[in-house]
């Protein structure tokens, strides 16, 4: 069990300062409708490059957790989710605000977010070390299949279009092939360009794919005037606390659902929020009140989406496979710092990981006062910032941030080009997450594939190498389930209907 020294390392004045700053910055960015948690992390990530890895991780974790919570403000007070994770918060948050209980809804969201965040962090602390031990048994072929599993899973979850998700993943794999080949060191797909020799820089590609399309979309449509009509009546913290205590089991269940969804590669807060909302409605005694301003609905969504933060870090740190899109950005930032995520990180870089996990606990706890104060006093000011002023400022920050990664103008060019391509692809129904995951997992997949091929060819047991190892077979089974899940799901209502008719 990790010792007290890591707790003390997380509680240095500098780390506390970073956690507070990160939570404030994340909450502010997350509360702005249109700006996502991924964007909050991507825009602010360059500031962390000069920090120690554990401090940088604490700040990024704080930004991420703050941004997920920040999305609740606009969802409750404007019926517009600040981040996609807060979609289900609008269902009950806005009706509560309409009947004059907006403050109570914000306080409930804050308590639920903190609870979810703490449960997620607890799972991260408890599950990661044993999983890292299991992951040490993984060979190249298991890593190859694991990467493919990540890609098929995110494709299956990409807005209901498996084919486009898979195409996006392949496009990401192609981007990962640019530059010098993993094993043989041959130059590929550079078209004679010196700039592309080093491959496509992950963080700049992520900034381009996640930020630029959002910025273009924000300005391409005229600015809607957002106005909060709800009158503030105070924190109503004790009332919110009493309501949360009454629904403690629902709160914990939603947090666990959020953590588990967060572990799945690519499935972020929005899916977690929707799944736990429907589960809370199904099991609640007041299910008929859901959608009409039921506090339990807010609790379910907000606890689940914040629990994805801790849950998402589990595959990120243990396997190097990002659990959620912001984790992909954080993973890229860690690579720039020279920290290689994977099972060995828990043995060789224990101080980094455990200091970060305790830092995440700290940031989540700090979110309670910070979130309540911002929700009470600063939200009106934040919401009045016009999109047309916000967008160029963020765009400018993405440019300087991308440049700061390697002091390279080529990275800015790649970022902008990928951003414009990402916007066009988005218009045609291709989501950026499979592309990003393909780019990140491409190197893991190719390395695993080529190494497994070499070993298999040398032992003349190529088939056995890829399809004959027990762990590989389990992962392949998961791949098949994720690939055929949309088909099964599409047929499921028909089957249920058929069974119902037979019973009649």
């Amino acid at each position: 069990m990790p010792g007290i020294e890591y707790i003390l390392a997380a509680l240095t004045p500098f780390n506390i300062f970073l956690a507070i700053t990160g939570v404030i910055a994340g909450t502010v960015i997350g509360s702005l409708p249109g700006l996502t948690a991924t964007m909050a992390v991507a825009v602010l990530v360059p500031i962390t490059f000069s920090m120690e890895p554990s401090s940088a991780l604490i700040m990024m974790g704080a930004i991420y957790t703050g941004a997920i919570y920040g999305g609740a403000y606009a969802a409750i007070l404007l019926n517009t989710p600040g981040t996609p994770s807060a979609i289900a918060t609008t269902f009950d948050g806005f009706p509560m605000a309409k009947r004059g209980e907006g403050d109570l809804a914000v306080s409930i969201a804050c308590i639920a977010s903190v609870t979810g965040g703490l449960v997620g962090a607890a799972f991260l602390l408890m599950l990661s070390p044993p999983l890292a031990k299991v992951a040490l048994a993984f060979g190249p072929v298991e890593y190859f299949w694991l990467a493919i599993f990540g890609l098929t899973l995110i494709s299956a979850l990409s807005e209901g279009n498996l084919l486009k998700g898979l195409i996006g993943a392949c496009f990401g794999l192609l981007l990962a092939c640019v530059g010098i080949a993993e094993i043989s060191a041959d130059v590929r797909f550079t078209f004679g360009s010196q700039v592309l020799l080093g491959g496509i820089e992950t963080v700049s590609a992520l900034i381009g794919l996640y930020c630029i399309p959002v910025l273009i979309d924000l300005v391409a449509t005229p600015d809607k005037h957002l106005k909060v009509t709800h009158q503030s009546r105070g924190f109503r913290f004790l009332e919110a606390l009493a309501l949360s205590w009454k629904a403690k089991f629902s709160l914990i269940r939603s947090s666990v659902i959020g953590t588990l969804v967060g572990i799945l590669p690519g499935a972020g807060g929005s899916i977690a929020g929707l799944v736990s909302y429907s589960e809370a409605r199904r099991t609640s005694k007041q299910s008929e009140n859901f959608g009409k301003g039921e506090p339990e609905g807010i609790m379910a969504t907000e606890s689940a989406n914040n629990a994805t933060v801790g849950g998402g870090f589990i595959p990120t740190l243990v396997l190097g496979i990002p659990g959620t899109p912001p984790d992909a950005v954080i993973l890229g930032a860690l690579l720039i710092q020279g920290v290689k995520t994977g099972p060995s990180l828990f043995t060789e870089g224990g101080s980094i990981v455990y200091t970060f996990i305790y830092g995440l606990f700290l940031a989540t706890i700090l979110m309670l006062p910070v979130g309540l104060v911002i929700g009470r006093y600063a939200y009106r000011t934040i919401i009045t910032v016009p999109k047309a002023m916000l967008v160029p400022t963020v765009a400018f920050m993405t440019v300087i941030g991308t440049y700061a990664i390697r002091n390279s103008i080529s990275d800015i060019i790649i970022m902008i080009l990928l951003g414009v391509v990402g916007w066009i692809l988005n218009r045609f129904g291709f989501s950026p997450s499979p592309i990003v995951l393909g780019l990140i997992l491409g190197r893991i997949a190719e390395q695993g594939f080529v190494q497994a091929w070499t070993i298999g060819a040398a032992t003349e047991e190529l088939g056995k190498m890829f399809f004959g190892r027990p762990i590989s077979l389990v992962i392949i089974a998961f791949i098949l389930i994720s690939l055929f899940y949309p088909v099964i799901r599409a047929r499921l209502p028909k089957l249920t209907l058929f069974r119902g008719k037979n019973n009649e």
Partner: protein
Amino acid sequence: MLDVEKLRKADVFSGFLVILLGCFIISQALQMPMKDSYGGVQNVWYVSPALFPLLVGGTLVLLGSLLMRTALRTIGVAGVKSVFRFLAGSTFLTFLKEREILRFYGIVLNLLILVFILVPRVDFFISATAFLFIFFAMFYCLDERYLTTIISYLIGGTIVLCLLLFTPLAERLAPMIGFPADYLLMIMLGALMFWVRKTIGLDPDYRRKYYRCLIIALAGPFIIGVLFKYFLLVPMPFEGAVVYLLDAIWYADFWS
């Protein structure tokens, strides 16, 4: 995102483009070395760098075909014909001139000029201020009917700047006035600021917006630029007139 019917129609073309991309990857991969020999003896441990791209290319061809097939089954041949009619007819040209598309041109043009022309060749602070102010002028300071005028000014100004940057003129002027492109951009930006202020007139709402934009366009790059340059020690992409001045102030020895 487009609505479902339009999306299915677009899928026919997306699928076709994906197949083309897949074929291109395969053709490129086939040009990569497949075997390796050392001193005339074949290296059995060599794994071709084409192996993985071939896998990716092949998968893309397969998925592209499936996407096309699904789309064709949904919209039929009549749907494809209607897309061709749309592309060949005047509706397509009208679509390209729609307000939303015009806003898209404005954003992308401004971004591309910043990245390809300004950032590598003009002082970072001036480039960033120009980028921000033009953006604000396009979408915030002024009414939407001025969007075309600002885009035209942006294109015209860029051509003038390119004439200075990509001809020997800049080199000849540099010994005399230091950073000619920086000063030229400052003059053009000043002219735009003056024009925007004049166009706004006495409307108090727009005047407030104008001054707010001016402050952010000047203070934003200054605060973030100084933070990156002097605290995070990231050199600016191009250090011209303003960085020269800031360096002189930052590194000045006031105590000697």
